[in-house]
């Protein structure tokens, strides 16, 4: 007579365990990709976010974060990565808007700025252009560069499509040994929305 309640309770326990496991896994996946989760390991320099030198690289959570966001980076001594989700005023970058990314040459042997959609994939465009590097970006007479990010543009232009969010990734390969003091909100590239 007691077997029915026991079976019912076992079934309820299984359902609860499955729900709990799924919720925990989903929460972890979401948390791994969230900006809030990276706050403790992050340098924010102007609109750009980067990881502190080698911080927590052996930590399981950090490893999973990197694998989720952008796996297989080079180590910090070899390359530095600066990601921007917002413009210099703190507003989220959006694909239907136009921005100007302007700055001076960066203290590294090679550097590049690339544009991605929210999933980290390139915006499809006829020119097949997703980035500019120190080798192909046009500089002005003062030795500064400006890149237009948006649906319309010319010159140094990274096209975007759709209505979703935009991520910009600044890569510095073989950065100068004393690079950190020179990276300030005033010296990193600014990201300013071009109002219509």
């Amino acid at each position, binding site marked *: 007579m007691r077997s029915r309640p026991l079976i019912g309770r076992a079934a309820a326990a299984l359902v*609860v365990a499955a729900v709990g496991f799924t919720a925990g896994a989903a929460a972890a996946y979401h948390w791994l990709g969230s900006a809030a989760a990276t706050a403790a390991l992050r340098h924010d320099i102007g609109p750009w976010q980067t990881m502190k030198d080698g911080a927590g690289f052996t930590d399981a959570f950090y490893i999973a974060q990197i*694998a989720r966001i952008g796996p297989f980076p080079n180590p910090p001594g070899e390359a530095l990565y600066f990601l921007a989700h917002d413009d210099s005023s703190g507003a989220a970058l959006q694909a239907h808007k136009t921005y100007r990314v302007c700055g001076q040459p960066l203290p590294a042997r090679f550097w590049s700025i690339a544009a991605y959609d929210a999933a980290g994939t390139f915006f499809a465009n006829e020119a097949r252009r997703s980035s500019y590097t120190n080798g*192909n970006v046009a500089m002005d007479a003062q030795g500064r560069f400006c890149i237009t990010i948006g649906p319309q543009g010319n010159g140094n232009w990274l096209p975007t499509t759709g209505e979703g969010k935009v991520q910009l990734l600044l890569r510095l390969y073989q950065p100068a040994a004393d690079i950190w003091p020179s990276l300030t909100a005033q010296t990193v590239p600014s990201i300013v929305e071009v109002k219509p």
Partner: protein
Amino acid sequence: MSRRWPLALAALLLVSAAVGYHAMIWYVPHAVMQKAYARFTPANHWVHADVLSGSKGSWVPLGNPDIVASRAAYDLSQGPLLLTGSASPDTYWSLTIYDGRTVHFYLVNGETLAGQPYRIALVQAGDAAAIARARAIGATLVESPTARGYLMQRTFVTPSTDFAALKPVREAAVIVPLR
């Protein structure tokens, strides 16, 4: 018993959520590696991208559109490996080795090589016989924390990059058993 039952279910919910949370943190890097093993098969064989990744998308989020990459999955379960090749000249080049959790544990770049070829014995950490063999042939000894992992050569491309000149350098890179 019946009063404790809801509490027991609540505890079970919390414990299973915690297990699910940690399982996902373990799973994410391993899922990336499984994708790499499936994509770069057979193991221990370089796959040379012949175009910039930006012109056809990338297999991982935030792929670099300014490099041509050579990639391989490695598997030390059948024994240690010998990696030989050279840096791409006149541009940024590096070879990075990642373990089975996507964590880098070795890097060499063109500046370090200074025009010389590389000769790397990749062995599983603690494999005394393989380590002795690597030392005997004078190769650079690199110990992998895991039996499987991922290799990536990056060549930064500039407007002046001569693809035709790069091709034989890239294709001369080989992975062979360490004998």
